[in-house]
């Protein structure tokens, strides 16, 4: 379309209303690439949870204690998901400053704060003499609660229903997982948490793609 720009700047003005609305719609979709995709981020987290918690459950089935390899895999996947989220968000929002950058930074900062508090609480529970099983259940559920409430906050902040709904769901899963006991708690987190997040992100992502295809000028 760039050849038309010169024509316009030299004074030709043959834009009809339908064409103009098409241009507005097209640029709105283009500008949407400056925002992180919540479908992509929740998809990455869903996959990390599904595989990570799946490994913890599989290795803890016999004696109730996850193996070192499974724990390392779960932690590694968590780190990869954090890195992917940070990279994706920074990549999408590069060159954008102002209100949403400040909101994003304040929101992003809440994640390490939440997980630091989670670590301290779990450490405190262990220090107070809790058994390894109590520590495992508390660590699991509190981490999920942190994620759940931050999803809810993000969903409210950006009017993202997927994020908000998933946050509500994960909060309930975190509560249910606390009653499941070790190692079932890992299975609940993996399937009901990670699995559902993955499926929801796929559905929302595909729907958005279909809407974009339908909205494109014929």
């Amino acid at each position: 379309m760039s050849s038309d720009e010169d024509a316009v700047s030299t004074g030709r003005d043959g834009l009809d209303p339908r064409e103009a609305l098409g241009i507005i719609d097209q640029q709105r979709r283009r500008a949407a690439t400056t925002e992180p995709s919540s479908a992509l981020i929740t998809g990455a987290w869903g996959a990390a949870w599904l595989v990570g918690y799946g490994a913890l459950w599989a290795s803890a089935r016999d004696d109730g204690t996850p193996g070192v390899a499974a724990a390392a895999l779960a932690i590694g996947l968590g780190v990869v998901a954090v890195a992917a989220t940070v990279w994706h968000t920074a990549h999408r929002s590069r060159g954008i400053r102002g209100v949403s950058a400040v909101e994003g930074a304040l929101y992003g900062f809440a994640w390490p704060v939440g997980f630091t508090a989670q670590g301290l609480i779990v450490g405190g529970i262990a220090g107070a003499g809790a058994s390894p099983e109590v520590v495992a259940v508390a660590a699991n559920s509190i981490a999920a609660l942190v994620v759940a409430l931050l999803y809810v906050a993000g969903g409210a902040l950006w009017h993202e229903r997927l994020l908000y709904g998933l946050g509500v769901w994960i909060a309930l899963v975190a509560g249910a997982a606390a009653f499941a006991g070790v190692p079932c708690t890992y299975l609940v987190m993996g399937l009901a948490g990670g699995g559902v997040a993955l499926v929801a992100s796929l559905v929302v992502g595909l729907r958005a793609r279909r809407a974009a295809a339908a909205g494109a000028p014929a």
Partner: protein
Amino acid sequence: MSDDALDPVIHAQARLRVVATLAALGRGDRIAFPRLQRLLDMTAGNLSTHLRRLEEAEYVSITKTYEGRTPVTYVELTGAGRLAFERYTEQLRALLGGVS
């Protein structure tokens, strides 16, 4: 409102694309010139020309600043620009008989 002529500052393909892109960003957000250029697939010279026209109409504000030692230019839709764009899209819809 629909009887008025379409705003000539906005009703030109290239500037409409610029304004629509800026309006799609959050209120109070500004965008670096090179990023805006990429979202529009325009040459720097072409984009500058249209931005000057929009700035004269006070529809965009342009901030030149430094990040470290690199000069950066940020572009933002003003309140007046957002209002003009909203009125313009309403007029388009009215012209099409309320088809959204």
